[in-house]
């Protein structure tokens, strides 16, 4: 797992807290709600990490019963993202609206260069009607053996990626991948 030592100085960590946050997706998109068909055997969550300028990072590792199950899940994620991004946006907006907060969410699959094939990335831009500024949040998925790791990263409100954040994300993804490789040995 990623730990605080994976981050630059100035970042802090706080314990992950379970949530009963429920997302509901259609049958063809249910994988985005975490229903992989083949139930993972274990999910481990990292601490939640806060950057000095308002960045946020969270990380989890999903362990499947077999490599085949993990490959199926990763392939399913890829195809779900090809056809379910609008549903993902709508679900985020609906959940926030239930709590009285209006947001507009737009998500897209990222084209990632400089990384191995198979690294999956989604970028979401969240705006608040009547307010200026966008909250940009990225989520990455990578598979090794029977494990899928995800990394969520959001930028300071009103800001987007820059050289510093790109370098940090690149390092975090490399670390996440190498930890998975160590775990499979």
């Amino acid at each position, binding site marked *: 797992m990623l730990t605080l030592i994976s981050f630059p100085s100035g970042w802090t960590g*706080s314990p992950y807290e379970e949530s*009963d*946050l429920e997302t509901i997706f259609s049958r063809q998109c249910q994988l985005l*709600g*975490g229903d992989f068909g083949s139930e*993972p055997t274990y999910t481990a969550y990292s601490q939640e990490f806060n950057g000095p300028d308002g960045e946020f990072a*969270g990380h989890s590792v*999903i362990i499947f019963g077999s490599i085949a199950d993990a490959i199926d899940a990763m392939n399913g994620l890829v195809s779900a993202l090809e056809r379910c991004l609008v549903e993902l946006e709508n679900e985020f907006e609906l959940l926030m609206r239930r709590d009285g907060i209006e947001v507009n969410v737009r998500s897209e699959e990222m084209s990632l260069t400089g990384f191995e094939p198979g690294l999956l990335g989604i970028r979401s831009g969240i705006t608040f009607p009547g307010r200026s500024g966008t909250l940009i949040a990225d989520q990455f998925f990578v598979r090794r053996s029977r494990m899928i790791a995800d990394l*969520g990263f959001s930028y300071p*409100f009103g800001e987007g990626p820059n050289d510093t954040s790109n370098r940090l994300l690149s390092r975090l993804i490399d670390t996440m991948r190498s930890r998975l490789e160590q775990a499979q040995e």
Partner: protein
Amino acid sequence: MALNYRWLFAMMIGVALLLAACAGEDSDDTSSFQSDRPQVPGVVTQIVSLSMSLLSINPKQTRRC
């Protein structure tokens, strides 16, 4: 088991609270930040403490008010 979206919702809530707090400052209502909190009940209450901590450690965002 669910994909780990909690962090994303926490961030959205955090920004919404920040914006509400900023709006309160514009109207000279210095207590608005506290009084806004009950307006985000439900599932959000599970993660609002995280959002508050995000705001409190984030002087750069606070300055934007």
